């Protein structure tokens, strides 16, 4: 049986206290909320820490207004997936939450945790013994990237389903640090680096997220994965569009699992803004959106096929958002 390393478990009562503990302990400690990402990685010895700081104090509430929705970071993905308040413009977020992994993991996994989910790579998300046999990589214990050995950086893939959607909905997170709270747009939460993929301080706790969807917004998330459940995304598209009549007045397209961070397809967003969301425009937008995606050979199926599929998922997501078919979970499983 794979087991956890010996750990201490701290139980702070507030985010401030948790942040102070983290600041004091430094890289020896990590936060744990649902644990669905953390525990497997601890068992595989990808994280080597000696202390866990429990985030059991986090709230799990949701307050939905017409154009803004506040969600506590401790809310489970299952709760978000089934929350009737996440309709209209927020439907894509519920959809993304409902497509994370599998039902029992969604019962444990949290909104905050999914925003912070570690980047993935199939040279890295392996047991200690396997990595020892393969040769350790840049992200843990080694000095080269096994996917791109000549590259100086790590190419692990951002694999969150909800982060791209939160970006498409202009999300803003509240971060609690040892010295107080601050707000940060979700778009600024990530860095294009497989190792240092988060721009927040390690001691900061994500306590809340605020999503924005002005009236007339519709959103959709399309996830590509091999099976209809359990799997991480191998490509995905989160879109939010605001329609003025049949003209797109605002457009956000964010891709999952094609880079080390959720990838904003800004050129495509600009292209579609001001246009009618008809089939031709959607197709062309999808083409443009797919261009910056650079999947590498470190996730399921071949990277050239995944690259090809980026266009397909963007097109599907846009079509669904444009025709207000959001809310029904779409899952492109092989």
């Amino acid at each position, binding site marked *: *049986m*794979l*087991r*956890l*390393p*010996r*750990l*201490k*478990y701290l*139980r702070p009562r507030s985010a401030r206290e948790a942040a102070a503990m983290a600041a004091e302990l430094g890289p020896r400690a990590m936060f*744990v909320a*649902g*644990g*669905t990402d953390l*525990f*497997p990685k601890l*068992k*595989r*010895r990808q994280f*080597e820490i*000696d202390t*866990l700081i*429990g985030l*059991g104090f986090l709230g799990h509430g949701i307050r939905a207004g017409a154009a803004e929705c506040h969600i506590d970071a401790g809310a489970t993905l*299952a709760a978000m997936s089934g929350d009737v308040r996440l309709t209209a413009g927020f439907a894509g977020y519920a959809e993304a939450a409902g497509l994370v*992994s*599998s*039902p*029992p*993991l969604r*019962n*444990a996994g949290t909104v905050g945790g999914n925003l912070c989910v570690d980047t993935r790579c199939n040279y890295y998300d392996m047991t*200690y013994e396997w990595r020892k046999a393969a040769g350790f990589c840049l992200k843990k214990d080694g000095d080269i990237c096994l996917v791109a050995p000549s590259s100086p950086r790590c190419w692990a893939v951002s694999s969150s389903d909800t982060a791209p959607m939160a970006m498409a909905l202009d999300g803003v997170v509240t971060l609690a640090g040892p010295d107080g709270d601050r707000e940060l747009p979700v778009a600024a939460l990530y860095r294009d680096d497989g190792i240092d993929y988060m721009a927040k301080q390690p001691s900061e706790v994500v306590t809340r997220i605020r999503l924005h969807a002005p009236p007339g917004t519709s959103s959709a998330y399309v996830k590509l994965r091999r099976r*209809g*459940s*359990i799997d991480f995304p191998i490509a995905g598209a989160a879109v939010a569009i605001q329609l003025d009549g049949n003209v797109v007045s605002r457009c956000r397209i964010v891709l999952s699992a094609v880079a080390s961070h959720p990838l904003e397809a800004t050129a495509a967003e600009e292209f579609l803004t001001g246009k009618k969301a008809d089939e031709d425009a959607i197709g062309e937008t999808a083409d443009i959106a797919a261009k910056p995606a650079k999947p590498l050979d470190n996730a399921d199926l071949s990277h050239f096929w995944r690259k090809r599929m980026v266009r397909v998922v963007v097109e599907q997501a846009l079509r669904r958002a444009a025709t207000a078919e959001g809310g029904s979970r779409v899952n492109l499983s092989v």
Partner: protein
Amino acid sequence: MKGEMARDVERLVLALDVNGERTELLLPVHKTLLEVLREDMRLTGTKHGCELGECGTCTVLVDGAPQLSCLVLPVQIEGRRVTTIEGMANGSVLHPLQQAFVELGAAQCGYCTPGILLAARSLLDGRPRPTREEIGEALAGNLCRCTGYAKILDAVELAAERMA
């Protein structure tokens, strides 16, 4: 990996509510609920297939909702109700789901069965007459290599019918 064993084991006295019985145990804090159920409480009906959250075999109910016991620490769920397969029947009377699994041959090797039964129970507790599609969605975190799932779906439908 080096140096781990040199660390002291932090032990906590935790009160666990498992199948309606409250037990106080002195536990290393890093032992998962799966290990505590199987090794410390000898409730070996909870099985395991990967210990990484990838197969669903170790599913138990926490406050009625399916969770993977390999990814939960007892310290995280103190005060919450844990239900394992041992707590599913009412004495020697099988739960309707168990009865339907027996009658329709939904368990072959039986190894994934406890986890699937608990996930199905949670579904029926919240949604008494699910469609076949909803049953599949609810159980989609639980792999089974023997049955091809057909008889499991049949059995959950039969149990739902009988419980209605």
